[in-house]
């Protein structure tokens, strides 16, 4: 798909993005370019500023400085809910699902959020024409047999899947996944990686991941952050060969 595009426009351009919390500079002048359909990993130790970067791209936090543009449109000042209409979707490091609603209702809220009308009050959800969209969506994230379960009763892994399902509602263009594999068993990780591999190729994906192995397997390109700054960028092979970066991940990859 990407090669068919005549005019190659960046999916996401981040320029000089900075976020301060008092004296702390959580993200410090970060610039990124992500091509359409690219799979990008953002790596970095705890407190490197990865989640804060996501928060600014998704609009949950206003940046102190810098600009963000999506497919050529400046979205720096756009509210988070307007960015959803532009195709930005995200998941959270700690699963945020609607515990009091069923899996189906969770997914339906996501579908309605992306398409509207969101304030419809005359017809029950059961008779809404777009209600059928919840089935295939649940299927994509392996929750087809859990549609009627309250989200609060899902296992941790299933909540992760539900989060992903909500983020996939109605053709996102830029998907931000904040440590989707955190806390998953080895088997759950594998099925998550398979789900990610199955995503449409024209979907641009940015992934925060602590597990270097997973991250390097799943993506085309890697950005490494350290203390709020960009430390390195490169292909997974280049990053795997970079001794400085291996040192940051000493716990897992130190010699």
């Amino acid at each position, binding site marked *: 798909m990407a090669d068919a595009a005549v005019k190659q426009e960046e999916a996401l351009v981040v320029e000089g993005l900075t976020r301060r919390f008092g004296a702390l500079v959580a993200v410090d002048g970060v610039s990124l370019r992500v091509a359409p359909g690219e799979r990008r990993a953002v790596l970095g130790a705890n407190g490197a500023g990865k989640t804060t970067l996501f928060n600014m791209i998704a609009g949950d936090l206003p940046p102190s400085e810098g600009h963000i543009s999506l497919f050529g449109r400046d979205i720096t000042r756009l509210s988070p809910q307007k960015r959803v209409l532009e195709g930005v979707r995200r998941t959270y490091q700690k699963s945020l699902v609607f515990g*009091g*609603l069923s899996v189906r209702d969770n997914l339906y*809220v996501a579908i309605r959020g992306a398409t509207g009308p969101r304030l419809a*009050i005359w017809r029950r959800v059961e008779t809404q024409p777009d209600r059928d969209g919840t089935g295939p969506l649940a299927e994509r994230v392996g929750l087809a047999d859990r549609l009627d379960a309250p989200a609060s009763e899902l296992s941790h892994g299933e909540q992760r899947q539900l989060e992903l399902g909500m983020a996939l509602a109605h053709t996102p263009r830029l998907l931000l996944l904040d440590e989707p594999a955190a806390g998953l068993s080895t088997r759950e990780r594998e099925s998550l990686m398979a789900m990610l591999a199955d995503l449409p190729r024209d979907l641009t994906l940015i992934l925060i991941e602590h597990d270097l192995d997973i991250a390097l397997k799943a993506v085309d390109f890697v950005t490494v952050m350290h203390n709020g700054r960009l430390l390195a960028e490169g292909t997974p092979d280049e990053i795997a060969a970079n001794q400085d970066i291996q040192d940051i991940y000493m716990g897992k990859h130190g010699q």
Partner: protein
Amino acid sequence: MTLRRLLTVVVALVLLVYPFVVNSFWLVQIGGRTLGFGTIVLSLVFLTAYTGMLSLAQMTVAGVAGYATAYFTAPTGGVGLELAWPVALILALGLATLAGLLIGLVAVRTRGIYTLMITLAVAMAFYYLTLQNYAVFNGFTGFNNVEPPVIAGLDLGAPLPFYYLSAVLAVLCYAGVRHVVRTPFGLALQGLRDEPQRLQALGYNVPLLRVLAFGLAGFVAGIGGILNLWLNASISPGSVALNPVIDVLMAGVLGGIGHPAGAYVGAFVFTIVDNFAIDFIARERFNTLIGLVFLAIVLFSPDGLTGLVRRAWARWAGTGRRRDDAPDDSTNIGK
């Protein structure tokens, strides 16, 4: 499902037959009051159960509708402007909805105990306004001799028609709430109750939803407020003072703020205690009694009497039954 249908039939039968088994005191002072007051409590339970927001201003919003109805149907001493009753009622409900929206705007950035405090402040401001303003609220006296309309020869102020009017409106409000929470708007409200940040990241305008929820609650409270006005045939600052304002929360907690049925259960118990406590306890002790009941409920059954019944039912029905009360879980309140 069948249990729910059975329960619906039983409640409908009780509501229908009730007038034929009780005297007129029980018909109006207990039955009518439970239904009117319960509808005001319902507006609070709607907010707590489905949006996770608390409010102490629901009696105030009901008072706005009550005052408006009195002002437009029963002018006294040069205060008021007589209008045809349908116009008066539409205006009254419109003003109650508007009041709800405005309170929502004031409360929208607050959570939990802070929402309670700010809505209490609004309620007390309105109380002093009614007390000191003569041009619109007729000050300390308020409005007296406010009668419901007579429609095609049917006097809605007579005990039996008034009871049925209250029952029909209460059932409509209850069914309306149950309907709304199953619409896309209602699911979004429950989403903001559970995880507002998540809801925003799905494309919803969270503050707008909060304000609209308060507006809808205002509309429901307005209906209860009009019934309350007609029941008392009068409205004065005492109707929107601290005590009645707190009573709504008391009745809500008593019945259970996790489920709309709790509103009417709470209103019923509250009305009974309110009417009969004086028979065996001094008037000044009444607040102590209610306070103790309140405390017992909060300590032993945080989801109120309905929660107690539901849990007893779940135990009785055995362990095979899955816990299906999750959507009404009251543990999210005030988050």
